[in-house]
């Protein structure tokens, strides 16, 4: 049965179901059992499953990652949450030198079924150290899986699959998706890792996107539609393994590619998509592929400085227009936003 849920509630439901299905699933992280429950995603878990399976932790990101690895070697399935991806930089040694390699380097005898939830901030002065989008880092490391759900249904389906996958999975949530609503199937609903989703069908250009940028892309596609441009919109969902088959299929149809990214451009996922398309679908490309990512700069804090820094539907429309040599008249964007550029919606009232 479908119900309309927020992204947050969908994650919460996935966690509850995973913990009901398998008592070896545990859930920890700073604040998982506090009154806010990681933006609501972990609310009620401790009451349901007890303090042995759901617990707060010391501010020790590196050790707590190694502890997840160790527990997983003995059959536990830890889900660890970080309120910002940036904090998890402390744990790269455990993630990269241990988690990612353990199954491979011990000849396939052990496996590390851990899920690490990372949240990316945006706007409201999140600034240089609360808004980094480092999915390209994780995707660069052999042995990790990386997912970035966009819709509430994907949030649930990918989280359940991540938890029951036998490999370390980096599950990246965008803070601006948390309040998004959408239909979510009930029950043990899983979406296979490694599959992209076609969100819109069109013939003029392929837009390949991920996470929150897909929301901006959806707005852009709608506006472009009205201008007679039809877009194929691919939401990657999984970044590693990555569903290049769907991307290639789309580009073979449209002959044009715009790759979006939530992070900086250099050595990004958007760059990888462009590289692979250029390598594999060169003959299908009608023109140079393009990339729209944030600048190769740290994220500034002032709302004035983030105005053109973050990329939005407007930017996508502009780039697509340039690629297709369309001159749009002023005002085609209409009344796209009813709130300031640095908040996800008018409902938002700081401080997070």
């Amino acid at each position, binding site marked *: 049965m479908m119900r309309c849920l927020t992204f947050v509630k969908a994650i919460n439901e996935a966690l509850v179901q995973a913990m009901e299905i398998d008592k070896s699933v545990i859930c920890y992280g700073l604040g998982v059992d506090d009154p806010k429950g990681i933006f609501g995603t972990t609310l009620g878990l401790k009451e349901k499953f007890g303090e042995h399976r759901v617990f707060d932790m010391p501010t020790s990101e590196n050790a707590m990652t190694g502890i997840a690895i160790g527990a997983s070697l003995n059959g536990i399935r830890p889900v660890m949450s970080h309120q910002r991806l940036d904090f998890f930089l402390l744990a790269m040694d455990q993630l990269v030198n241990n988690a990612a390699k353990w199954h491979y380097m011990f000849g396939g005898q052990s496996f590390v079924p851990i899920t690490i939830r990372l949240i990316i901030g945006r706007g409201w002065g999140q600034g240089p150290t609360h808004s980094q989008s480092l999915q390209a880092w994780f995707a660069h490391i052999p042995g990790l899986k990386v997912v970035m759900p966009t819709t509430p249904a994907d949030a649930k389906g990918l989280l359940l699959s991540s938890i029951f996958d036998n490999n370390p999975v980096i599950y990246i949530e965008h803070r601006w998706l948390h309040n998004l609503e959408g239909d979510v199937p009930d029950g043990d609903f899983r979406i296979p890792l490694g599959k992209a989703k076609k969100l819109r069908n069109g013939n003029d250009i392929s837009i390949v996107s991920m996470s929150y940028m897909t929301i901006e892309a959806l707005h852009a596609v709608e506006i472009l539609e009205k201008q007679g441009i039809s877009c194929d919109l691919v939401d990657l969902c999984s970044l590693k393994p990555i569903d290049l088959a769907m991307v290639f299929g789309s580009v073979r149809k449209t002959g044009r590619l715009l790759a979006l990214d939530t992070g900086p451009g250099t050595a990004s996922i958007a760059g990888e998509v462009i590289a692979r398309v250029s390598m594999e679908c060169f003959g299908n490309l009608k023109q140079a592929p393009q990339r729209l990512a944030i600048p190769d700069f740290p994220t500034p*804090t*002032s709302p004035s400085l983030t105005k*053109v820094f973050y990329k939005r539907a407007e930017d996508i429309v502009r780039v697509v227009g340039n690629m297709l040599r369309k001159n749009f008249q002023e005002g085609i964007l209409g009344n796209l936003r009813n709130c300031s550029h640095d908040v996800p919606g008018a409902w938002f009232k700081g401080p997070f």
Partner: protein
Amino acid sequence: MCSQKKNFTIGIELLRRMIKIRLTEETIAERYSEWKMRCPTHLCIGQEAVAAAVGLALRKDDFMMSTHRAHGHYLGKGGDLNKMLAEIYGKATGCSAGRGGSMHLIDKKVGFMGSTSIVGGTIPVGVGLGLSIKLREKDQVSCIFFGDAAIEEGVFYESVNFAVLKKLPVLFICENNLYSVYSPLKVRQPAGRKIYQMVQAMGCPSDQGDGNNAMEVYQKVSSAVAFIRKGEGPCFFEFLTYRWREHCGPNFDNNIGYRTEEEYLSWKDKDPICSLESHLLEQFPVSRKEIEEMQNSIHLEIKKAFEFAENSHFPQPQEATTNLYAGELT
């Protein structure tokens, strides 16, 4: 008598700094809902004594590093109020030109070398400043502020180890306010283990003190600073204190369930500003009226600083993509 006079001067200066911190923070809290300060903001109301006393015990050319909860430390060290508020408002006149916000403050003129938002992240940076002092054979001190949660980061321990190993001029100040966001100490650190004792066992001289008693903090820290300045190596202090308002943002949140109203009230009873006021009124030739005048003049200063911040212009959006790298310097 001489020392009595000195104590009086110190007491008055401590009070001035604490009131300045308190009133600034309260004005931020009051005006936060205008939604013009658009960044995460961590207030230190209730914790002013340590900030003021440590700041006063240090020289202007001593260094200081701080955390996400930096307003008090910045002002205690003598940081520029206008620039701090302008930074929180995201203005070009902000101390970090609008790039850093409340969590990234700097005022190098008074040795405030930076605050950042990653728990524990500035601890080794402060130790590095200590190393530079030693290399340059200066008698400065590098002071590092951090909370009780920073103790849990491995980098804290690594930093203390190195500071002790090299006998660096570093003053570690842990403000233990019992919580990390909504998490009480007991879910993060072993019951009964005292932070300052553990640090002692790491090889660093350490002590604990009442973070609501500004005079005590000042005395303890001053003698440690003298010790450090002589080249005797680092010292560590744990000061017990309490944050009155929510972890991040302007409100009170004792109602949401992670701590009790009673606990809050018991700490509020020990208000470091009231305590110092009473102490000064009792022991020294100062009247309530004089203190009120001090308050009024601080009020005025703060009012003007908010005006400065509000009236300053925003940086141009295009400036976001300038000055990534430092160029050649003179």
